[in-house]
């Protein structure tokens, strides 16, 4: 008996010290981090081992990006399809996207179901040719492989962009694949959401393309206004200014609607693009520029090398001002030389994600590739453009599927209220248990306390992230974990009532309660298990803490309190149990 008790204590203390070992860095980290007097101590080495807070607690940005199937599948298709085939593919893609939404299936599977194998092969013959060793009868497989490649490439580009870049206050970024066509980006501690988001979106599609003259723009506006059946006339919404059109930001949607409807009048040769931001001009008018640019780009992202923002050196006309320098790849040099030679005096648009970031004027023919962009008001502007040029072209178009942003103050509020309710909740349970079960209640509280340490230790050792629902889960376990003790205590009371001796009552109570506790907790575990599959971050946190909490509470109620009871009854002869 004594020996068995020894083993029990060794197990308990072993687990406990292991848990404390895991908790220690967290305790040190947060106590140093929260003390302003110790702010110069470097605690980064503790950070990796400390409990991490979820985005909902520390504030930050969570973005899910997904493949834009429509443009992706059209872009991958054979360029020389006949008009009717193109139309068919277009329809099939639309239907496939709709079906996949309805049936929760893969868009590519739906597309291959909708199109005959021969048709599919025809649509993507160039893609098939480009991938050797592929089964020509299995276009679907080739498409899926291509998607995988594209997503991996996007992930790399994104990771590079985000991790190499801290100028937007992007801290502790994380970027992961999610399913076959999504990326999840987490930027903890981001305080300026639009900047961070803009930055992520900037890594979309990049091109340098010719800006056409206002005369050309007017011609097209004339064509649209006369031939399209639009409620508003474009010429009334736009006014020419410095090589582009100015519109009132309020009309943004209206103009977009007109442009979309009338695309066929210009999209063969031109595209009409917005400036990426608005200009605020006196009397409260928010204005935005609209450019007419060439449909075919002169240079695409992969052809630009080493764009850099720097201060122009002594000897240049703009010495001391911020400029951006860039170089071209071999193929880029040839294209750039021809393009600049033909278009001296014209503007070239720096386009990212179909938004114009800048439209500098071409001063002379550039045959070496080395290019200087001048005319920046400040360092920030130059750096922004350099970042845009760096962005490069993604192998596939992506769009935002989900955004969650939690501002830093809301996160801090959540931490505060989480703490407060945690302490309040535990206190209430402690007091209740002591009032209701007296000395045995104290034992249950001790078990509960050990239980909390174990749960925390396990959470940290698992590298789990603490979220607000996670805190709720912890608190819920506090309420529910005393349940196991309650079942046991009520059982012991019943045993005492029918006249059992103290030791027998304890033994019978524990033995009989065991099955009940097991059955009752397994079902809660089952629901927590199911939950961990559906939710995203925060809910997963809830499911994890709840499951771990339940497992630990079973251990602490069945094993720890019993060991304490047994030990006590060994040394003291208990005549009457305080329960």
């Amino acid at each position, binding site marked *: 008996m004594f020996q068995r008790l020894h083993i029990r204590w060794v197990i308990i203390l072993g687990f406990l010290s292991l848990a404390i070992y895991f908790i220690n860095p967290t305790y040190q980290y947060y106590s140093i981090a929260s003390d302003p007097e110790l702010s110069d101590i470097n605690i980064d080495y503790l950070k990796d081992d400390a409990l991490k807070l979820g985005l909902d607690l520390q504030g930050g940005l969570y973005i899910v990006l997904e493949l834009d199937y429509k443009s992706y599948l059209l872009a991958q298709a054979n360029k020389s399809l006949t008009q009717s085939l193109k139309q068919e593919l277009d329809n099939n893609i639309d239907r496939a996207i709709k079906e996949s939404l309805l049936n929760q299936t893969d868009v590519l599977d739906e597309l291959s179901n909708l199109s005959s194998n021969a048709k599919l092969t025809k649509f993507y013959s160039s893609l098939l040719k480009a991938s050797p060793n592929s089964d020509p009868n299995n276009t679907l497989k080739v498409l899926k492989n291509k998607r995988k490649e594209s997503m991996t490439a996007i992930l790399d580009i994104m990771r590079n962009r985000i991790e190499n870049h801290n100028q937007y206050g992007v801290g502790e970024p994380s970027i992961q694949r999610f399913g076959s066509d999504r990326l999840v980006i987490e930027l903890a501690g981001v305080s300026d959401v639009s900047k961070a988001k803009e930055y992520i979106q900037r890594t979309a599609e990049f091109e340098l393309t010719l800006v056409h003259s206002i005369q050309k723009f007017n011609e097209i506006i004339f064509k649209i206004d006369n031939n399209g059946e639009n409620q508003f006339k474009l010429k009334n919404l736009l006014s020419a200014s410095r090589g582009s059109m100015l519109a009132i930001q309020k009309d943004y949607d209206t103009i977009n609607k007109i442009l979309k409807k009338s695309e066929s009048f210009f999209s063969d040769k031109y595209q009409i693009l917005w400036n990426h931001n608005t200009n605020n001009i006196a009397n409260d008018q928010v204005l935005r520029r609209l450019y007419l640019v060439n449909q075919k780009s002169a240079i695409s992202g992969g052809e630009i090398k080493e764009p850099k923002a720097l201060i122009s050196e002594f000897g240049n006309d703009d010495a001391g001002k911020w400029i951006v320098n860039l170089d071209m790849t071999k193929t880029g040099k040839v294209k750039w030389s021809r393009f600049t030679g033909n278009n001296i005096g014209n503007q070239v648009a720096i386009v990212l994600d179909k938004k114009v970031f800048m439209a500098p004027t071409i001063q002379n023919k550039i045959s070496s590739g080395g290019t200087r962009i001048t005319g920046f008001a400040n360092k920030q502007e130059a750096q922004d453009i350099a970042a845009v040029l760096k962005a490069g072209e993604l192998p596939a178009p992506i769009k935002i599927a989900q955004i969650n942003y939690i501002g830093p103050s809301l996160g801090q509020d959540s931490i505060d209220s989480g703490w407060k309710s945690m302490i309040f909740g535990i206190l209430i349970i402690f007091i209740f248990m002591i009032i*209701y079960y007296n000395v045995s209640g104290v034992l249950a509280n001790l078990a509960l306390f050990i239980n909390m340490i174990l749960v925390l230790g396990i959470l940290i050792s698992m590298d789990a992230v603490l979220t*607000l629902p996670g805190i709720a889960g912890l608190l819920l376990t506090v309420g529910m974990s005393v349940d196991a003790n309650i079942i046991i205590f009520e059982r012991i009371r019943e045993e005492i009532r029918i006249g059992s001796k103290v030791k027998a009552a304890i033994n019978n109570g524990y033995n009989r309660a065991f099955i009940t506790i097991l059955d009752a907790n397994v079902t809660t575990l089952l*629901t927590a298990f199911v939950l961990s599959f559906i939710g995203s971050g925060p809910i997963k946190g809830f499911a994890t803490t709840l499951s771990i909490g339940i497992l630990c509470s079973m251990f602490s109620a069945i094993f720890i309190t019993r060991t304490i009871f047994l030990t006590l009854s060994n040394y003291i002869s208990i005549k009457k149990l305080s329960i």
Partner: protein
Amino acid sequence: MQIFKNTLQINFSSYNFFTGILSCLLILISLFILFWKGLNLTVEFTGGTNINISIVKTQIKDFREILETHINQKIEVVEVNSSSENSNFLLRTKFIEDESFIINQLSVYYPTIKVNSIDSFGPKLGSELKSSARNAILLALLLISFYIAIRFDRYYALGSLAALTHDVVITIGLLSFFNIEIGITIIAALLTIVGYSLNDTIVVYDRIRENINKLLDQERINIINRSINETLNRTFVTSITTLAVVLVLFFYGGVVLKPFAFTLIIGIIIGTYSSIFIASPVMLFFEEKYPIPEFKEEED
């Protein structure tokens, strides 16, 4: 201290008629509310964009007017948790990838505008989440029934399933009645309720199973009554402790957890009720109506 003395012998079965009608009524009312008002789903499920902003103290009427005149898009506005210096507004609109133009536009009129949070879900993700939430609830119910059918028998499984469905339907009905939006957190709360209510039910079932083996000559209905009485202390004490922490969450857990805690409060009360008044009578009903045909041993 003890809530109920050991001599307690409430004849729970005598209330079966009354509680049966009460529960049916509650379920019917809940279903009626659900059909009348519909499920109030968050953007997580429907797809859409929610933006929570703080600006200087402003009448919501004026704010709406500014939005209407300057932004060419339908935006719903509600006021949430405004303090004495600031107004907090929740803007709700169809899914937009780029909400910055709204913020930029507003910052012309409210230079101190602060974005507290943004929740934006595309339609595809929304419908995916919706079906995975539905599947999760069904899967949980299925797994649980299986577990109980194995550990006890099929009548117990039917009884607990009836109790759980009862809890979930009434809770959702009440949520709809109080205009609480159902999002992933609420789904998590509903599943927690399922787990909790089941926990209660199983403790009773477990006692019934034990008493059936102990009191062979007793009628089933008496055994059930006795078992519920014997476990009543535990049922109440656990409900009190769990309710206590959930109430703490409700009052001190902050804005984000309030609906979650509220759902749990409703669920725990209904779950406790159903484990006493629904689970066992339904189990008994099925056991008496559709008894397992006894095996006839074949003679060699």
